[in-house]
């Protein structure tokens, strides 16, 4: 079974994602801040990461860049969740390496379909 890492400081959103992805037969790991997310990513080597942009300490863009510039992790697909805030808009111009962007509020089915596109 494929492993998915969900990193978001909003627990409710993590839970709903976890629910539908587990229903689609994926194993989900969850982290509620950027630091834990980065550590977990290195520990478990997930097959895909769902990453929120706005998080305290280490934001999603930073995590994405750190992983994508590392040979060991650069092939892990990253789905970035964004709220389209002005702050994020400024950052989005920079190279983040994310494979997909999902705008809040998103459709759960759409997320599952996108995950399936990468993991089958």
């Amino acid at each position, binding site marked *: 079974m494929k492993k998915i890492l969900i990193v978001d400081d909003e627990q409710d959103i993590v839970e709903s994602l976890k629910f539908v992805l587990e229903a689609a037969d994926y194993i989900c790991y969850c982290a509620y801040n950027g630091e834990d997310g980065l550590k977990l990513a290195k520990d478990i080597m997930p097959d895909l990461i769902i990453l929120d942009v706005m998080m305290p300490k280490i934001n999603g863009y930073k995590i994405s860049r750190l992983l994508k510039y590392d040979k060991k992790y650069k092939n892990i697909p990253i789905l970035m969740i964004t709220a389209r805030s002005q702050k994020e808009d400024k950052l989005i111009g920079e190279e983040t390496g994310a494979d997909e962007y999902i705008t809040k509020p998103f*459709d759960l089915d759409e997320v599952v379909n996108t995950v399936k596109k990468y993991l089958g």
Partner: protein
Amino acid sequence: MGKILFISNRLEKIQHYAKIFDKKPYEFFTSSDEGAIFEITEINNPDIIIFDHAFVNVKQIIKKLKSVTTSSSFVFLTQNTVIENDIIKYINAFLTEEMSDELVLSTIAVNLKTKNMLERLSDTNKNLADSLYRLNVLYSTSSQFAGSLDKGKLINYMVEGLDKSLSFDLTCTLCTEDEPVLILNSLYEISDELLSAIKLRTVLNYKSLFEDKNPPFEIDIENLKVIKTVKYPANRFTFTIFQYDNMFAPISLGDNFFGCIEIFKEAPFTSDDATCFQTIAQQVSLPLKSATLYQEIMETNLKLEKLERLKSEFISIVSHELRTPLTAIKNSLDIISSERCGTINESGQKFLSMAQRNVQRLAGIINDLLDLSKIEAGKMEYHFTNMNIHSVIDYVKSTLFGVAKEKGLNLIAEETLNLPEIYADAQRLEQVLTNLVSNAIKFTPEGKNIIIRSHLAKAEQLNAPDCFKDDLKKLNGEYIVVCVEDEGIGIAEKDLLRAFDKFAQIENSLSRKVGGSGLGLPIAKQLLEAHSGAIWCDSELNKGSKFYFALPVNAVTSNLEKSLILN
């Protein structure tokens, strides 16, 4: 009255002339001593000096006297009629020994008259020159006034103008704007004692302007700020300054009071000086008023800019903060409605879909708000490409066909084939057309038609209700026009323009039932303006509406050129 000095040592001639000039209003005196001539001339300042040809060294004396006196007229008593060349240029008139008394008298009288007239002319000339100078000062001062909106500079210009035209010893200007300041421009240094006396005097002057009323500013003499400029700090003024001639004027315009000014000068002021002083003090009031208004406008502008920025930031933050909880609600509703947590009965399903529909609506409003705040902040990003309008119409038709069908409506596209390409942002145009078609779907009752048309038109062929005429006037050249026609409730003519106003969704029961942020059309208008296009509508109440938008065809090249120039 004329003073006549006769330089001679012939007694009989002196007596003769004394007799002639005794009768008329002449003052006659003589000098027979070569050494005393200069002193007598200096003291008595004669109008006419008559030189006797028989006087010793007379020619040298004439030359010497001419170089020291300019106000006397020289007359030469000659022996023969041959005029002597070496003194002719110093002499105004000649007398001869043989002349009758009447002729002598009339020669002198004419000479005196000429001299007086010349003097008067020179006085008038001097006055004219003075007036001209003063006018020039006033002119340059008033052009300086007109060129500045800085209050400090305006006061400086006023004092400069006064200095040039009146050459004062001291001016005391009290400015009551913001914090009261006493500006002193002085020829000599002012001692501390004199300064306190001047302060007191100025404040009393100031209070006297308002008689029984309270002055607009309370001035605390102890803490009154003083700005002092001294021309010659080595010298000092004493209290005698208060015995100098002085003038005082308020600096005010209508109800606006800016301050007052007092001016001191040792020599007395003339009435011309007073006019000049009043003029300058009055002239400075108008630019001071403009400066005050300018300052107010600048402050208001800064506040508005800040508010505008805050508003944009606020909307951006709010939309972000709203999105996250909205996502959690939407996800939970979706999971429940998928019945993965258990089955839901029919009425439960009904309310669940009501909640889902409203979450969707809220998300739409947040997106619109964010779009509008981006457009207004100039942060909207456009991705212009050469594109075909058919693809936009196809896309919108296919995405909304289902929605229309569900409501029992017919969505039809009647396009003109082979329209030229345009340079535009396809996604934004899809947004505009989606909005127009969604509105049509919202406002059209079951069983009716919605038609999307497209055609090519010249700017002058375009037609719109009067309220949009100004928008169409800006257009020039060839345009692709897209029209969304419905058979819905329509819009009253007076409400047409308001349809494109922010939050101005026209009040009626149906529009409230169908909902929406009311921002779709204002956003569409802004997006079209970014494309150098236009949007307008034509409608008849209860018959239906036609919404048009026009996109320039020639922008394919002009926009490309623009981006080339920018790069």
